[in-house]
């Protein structure tokens, strides 16, 4: 078992990162499953991280309370800005949420209490591996239940054809707001967990690049199910570590993989339909 503890002491932050990134990829998958291309989740993650870290550092709140606050604060904000923002659609929504993310980043960069560009230092590492595993499992369980519920089916209908959904009497705006807020909730939780194992947070981690990274993970893995985003998040987190020997060139591999997947696997790496079709074909071959 010595190798296991060696492995853990070297790679535990990597495993933590996979868990947090998986939650983030799932948070954008929810909004995508309702047909919304929102790029605000990095900002929501940042708000969760800063709110929770500040409550820990200044008020000394206990960890569970801090987590709850870091989860609810971005969700409340999403509820507030959701109504006006979600009137936009497609590219315009993507741009508006990007602009929102930049506003949040620049505000955090300039406030006294958030430590400005230096960020916050010395956050106690309260997050443990099982916390992340537990919350990731809860998220997945919740989303599986959601997908099979009336609300999940409504999301799908809105994604496929918004006008038809509205004509059938569905509360399209309400469902969109719900998806947007739920995404913010999960992103906030991921941010709060992340802040309490990295020791240090800064505004740089929650900007444009992170927003794009989160989207990339989900799309790379495939957004038609829940396994896809988790797979994409794991791959994009592990890959730079595996490719460390390539030094400055290692990100080029990330970029190339992204392009190849977009070109040749339009539905992402994990597509339940493709896998099912493949299994069916295999079974038929076995019979024959």
């Amino acid at each position, binding site marked *: 078992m010595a190798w296991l503890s060696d492995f853990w002491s070297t790679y535990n932050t990597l495993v933590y990162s996979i868990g947090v990134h998986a939650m983030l990829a799932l948070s954008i998958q929810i909004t995508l499953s309702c047909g919304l291309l929102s790029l605000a989740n990095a900002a929501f993650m940042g708000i969760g991280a800063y709110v929770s870290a500040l409550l820990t550092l200044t008020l000394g709140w206990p960890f569970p309370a801090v987590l709850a606050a870091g989860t609810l604060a971005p969700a409340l904000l999403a509820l507030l800005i959701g109504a*006006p923002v979600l009137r*936009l659609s497609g590219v315009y929504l993507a741009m508006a949420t990007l*602009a929102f993310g930049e506003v949040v980043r620049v505000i955090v960069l300039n406030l006294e209490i958030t430590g400005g560009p230096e960020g916050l230092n010395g956050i106690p590492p309260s997050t443990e591996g099982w916390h992340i595993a537990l919350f990731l499992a809860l998220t997945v369980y919740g989303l599986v239940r959601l997908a099979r519920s009336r609300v999940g089916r409504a999301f799908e209908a809105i994604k496929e054809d918004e006008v038809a959904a509205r004509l059938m009497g569905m509360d399209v705006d309400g469902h969109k707001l719900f998806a947007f807020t739920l995404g913010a909730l999960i992103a906030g939780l991921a941010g709060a967990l992340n802040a309490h194992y990295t020791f240090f947070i800064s505004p740089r981690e929650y900007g444009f690049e992170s927003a794009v990274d989160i989207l990339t993970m989900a799309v790379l893995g495939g957004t038609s199910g829940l396994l896809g985003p988790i797979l994409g998040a794991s791959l994009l987190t592990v890959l730079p570590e595996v490719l460390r020997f390539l030094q400055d*060139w290692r990100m080029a591999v990330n970029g190339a*993989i*992204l392009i190849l997947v977009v070109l040749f696997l*339009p539905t992402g790496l994990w597509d339940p339909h493709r896998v099912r079709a493949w299994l069916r074909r295999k079974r038929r071959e076995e019979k024959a």
Partner: protein
Amino acid sequence: MFAQQLANALTLGSVYALFALGFTLVFGVLAVINLSHGAVFMVGSYAALVLVTRFQAPLWLALIGAMLVSGGIGLLVDVLILKPLRARNAPHLIPMIATIGVAIMLTSAGQGLFGAEIHRFPEETLPAGELVIAGIHLRALEIGIVAVAFALMALLFVVLRRTQLGRALRAIAESPKAAYLLGINVEGLFHLTSFVAAALGGVAGVLIGLDFNAITPQMGQPILHKGIAVIILGGMGDIRGALIGGLFLGFAEVMSKAYLSSQMGDAVAFGLLFLILLVRPSGLFGRVLERKA
């Protein structure tokens, strides 16, 4: 003092406008948010640097070389990546993600080839001299930058407004399908647009590289954010909007750096953008184009 800042703002704003013009051209004609435009901008400035330092090319030749190199990359991206995506009618999110991949690859290649450190044009290759008009000091370099940027933009305006080619491009911007039915070579013009847009981005890269005399693999990121800001402000796909938006952003940036804290200026700018999007999603000049085909 104010007049001096105005001159600086004009220099910066004209380059922003040039950059945003390529960005908005691709969005208008191809309906793709090309997130590799910032990386192509970076490639342009490295190409000019290599031509100047390694091949002792004069600056004007380096400018043309950089245009061809970055334009070539834009063309390659269109032929190899965007064209197959168009052929299978991928939703607009997909080409955008592909261009993220391109941006990552180019930035990483820049870092691999040249390292992460700052490169500079040798001092003797920069145009020296200064023009003093009514107490305002204008560097010859700045005058050159503004002249090149405006000359290229004027050329583009004339082509778009006055020629058969421009009419064809505007027809595609309205509806590629209708343009195709009218006998316009839509695919060819998509390639041409990608080339021209990337070439403009590359020139903007050289001009910024000269203005600040600092070239790094990461230099495409901040300008990409600004480009996004400009096309939101001016209306996505709107050429005139990109020009006015670029100048406005250059002006806002220089003035807020001079008279406010530099960072709060960004917050105001992006806050304003966010509001504009909520009130007028089409930007100040644009119309919302919901293209179905």
